[in-house]
């Protein structure tokens, strides 16, 4: 496994969304990425310096996607909003590699001290990977999502 990240240009993101909307057989993970970005908040962050939508490639094949950005509510930190592995490539170790890669990428590009993210309480795999890489900060009192920070 040799995972590389490629930052999508804004134009490429728009084309990706158009392609998904036109294709009734779009992959479920593509629709998942689109749904998260389409809420308007995630999308507006794409215009901010230090934010990026990344596609993870292995040997030319797209295996996942990630989105990170900065937010005024998170001083000194980069927020990892999406870490998503194509369902066809799950259980192969890509999730761990992708989480590590996007955290490293986000901190390296932003110069910020911390990377933070939240995980659904029932996502056992991501909870384990997040605990291995970072440190649990606590649990969001309203949603139950588990909060993580690195380093």
């Amino acid at each position, binding site marked *: 496994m040799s995972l590389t990240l490629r930052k999508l240009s804004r134009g490429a993101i728009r084309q990706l969304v158009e392609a998904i*909307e036109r294709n009734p057989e779009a992959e479920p993970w593509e629709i998942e990425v689109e749904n998260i970005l389409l809420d308007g908040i995630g999308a507006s962050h794409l*215009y901010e310096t230090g934010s990026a939508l990344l596609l993870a490639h292995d040997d030319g094949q797209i295996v996942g996607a990630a989105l990170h950005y900065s937010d005024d509510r998170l001083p000194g930190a980069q927020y990892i909003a999406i870490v998503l592995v194509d369902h066809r490539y799950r259980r192969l170790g890509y999730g761990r590699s992708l989480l590590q890669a996007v955290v490293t990428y986000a901190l390296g590009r932003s110069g910020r001290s911390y990377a933070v993210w939240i995980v659904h309480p029932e996502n056992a795999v991501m909870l384990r990977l997040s605990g291995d890489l970072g440190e649990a900060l606590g649990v969001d009192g309203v949603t139950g999502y588990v*909060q993580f920070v690195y380093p």
Partner: protein
Amino acid sequence: MVSDLARNRREVVDAARREPVRIRDADGTMLVLTTEAQAIDHALLLSYFEIYIRASIEHAHDAPSPALLGPVSYISDWTKQQRQMFLDDFLEALSEANRTHTATPVTAFIDYFAPKPGRVSPLVDPEVLSRLGDALAAR
């Protein structure tokens, strides 16, 4: 004088189904025959150009008017830099639409950034991020 439509009705209609065709009426008037869908799409594309111009004008103001921005009112509280990047991409979408003779690229672009009430994922919910920030500060 016999009109193009009267002379070659089948061929003219078949061609108009594919793309707009110019035909000459019996009195010499030039007409354009097109499908209803293409006419609606063309009108929609024209309205998008108007929205782009309006957004460009509002962008120059310190406090853009959401009412005047209409379908793209959501950019009114964005930073000036974000709005400029939005307009750059808007123009790119318009160019693509003009090139492909369909309003779809612009429709997708405007919808892409529009807030979707009730669809805010906790992953990008400002309140969730505020509490995450509090937890980080308390660490």
